[in-house]
């Protein structure tokens, strides 16, 4: 094999009702093989009930050098966390 096969990102849903989570990546020549490889590599111990694969090339990532302007402004906005609210006794399911 002279060229590496394309890379695919693998997302698993561990139980019904939960969302898919990124677990890693596999090499595969097409989507069908990517699902098969993801199954073989990442669900050997019963980790999943659903698999998504996405071509790694389709992922658009933020630029690490932008992290100050993207993320730092949020650090001192503690009022955005829902810890300032008194929940009335009568409210259920929170």
């Amino acid at each position: 094999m002279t060229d590496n096969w394309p890379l695919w990102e693998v997302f698993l849903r561990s139980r019904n009702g939960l969302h898919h989570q990124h677990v890693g990546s596999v090499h595969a020549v097409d989507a069908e093989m990517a699902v098969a490889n993801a199954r073989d590599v990442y669900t050997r111990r019963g980790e999943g009930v659903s698999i998504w694969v996405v071509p790694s090339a389709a992922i658009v990532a933020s630029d690490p050098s932008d992290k100050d302007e993207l993320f730092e402004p949020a650090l001192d906005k503690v009022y955005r966390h829902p810890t300032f609210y008194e929940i009335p006794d009568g409210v259920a399911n929170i």
Partner: protein
Amino acid sequence: MSPTSEPLLTYADGALVLSHRLSEWMSNAPTMEEDIALGNIALDLLGQARGLLQHLGDEDELAYFRDAQEFRNPLLCELPNGDFAHTIVRQLFADAWFAEIWSALAADADVTDDVRGVAEKAIKENAYHWRHSSAWVVRLGDGTEESHRRTQDALDALWPYRGEIASPAWYSRVETVLAEATLTTPPRDAWTQRSSADGWHSEHLGYLLAEMQSLARAHPGATW
């Protein structure tokens, strides 16, 4: 061992020996992903073999302390891995054989519950094995000039070993995949190797067993 157990011993030995062959790919498969895929299949087969051997007697005694002429696996299962195409075509043949076995056992009212349990679990495992091997045969056969040539070579080399495992259902399963893979299927009435049912094996089984059994024979009863 009762004569009625003999077919089960053939299935158990076939799964055990083929499992060992697949395990020889560990760290050597074409890709890391395929390495793990073959390992998964090997472990499934090992579990199936254990389930049947436990039904037939002492699984360690049967796996580690019989000699080659006492094994009843089809010759196909003991053949060396060869290149990846050989391994995949061998697997296609074996998966089609096991598909018939497990569905027949699961539907057989005369088998005991433990054997039916092995079969019902194996049906799902085998369905994935079949998907894996048939997809690879199509990719390789209908792939590049080199992959087509190597897969045709593997098919021609392994076709004589179908005699012990082929049924009309087996032929139709296998031939459908081979046609999709643009491979030339040899005729059904072509020559086949004799059966291993009377204890005749290829020279390869002895070497396989030597590796598989040496530890258990050097340290009988050892646990870890």
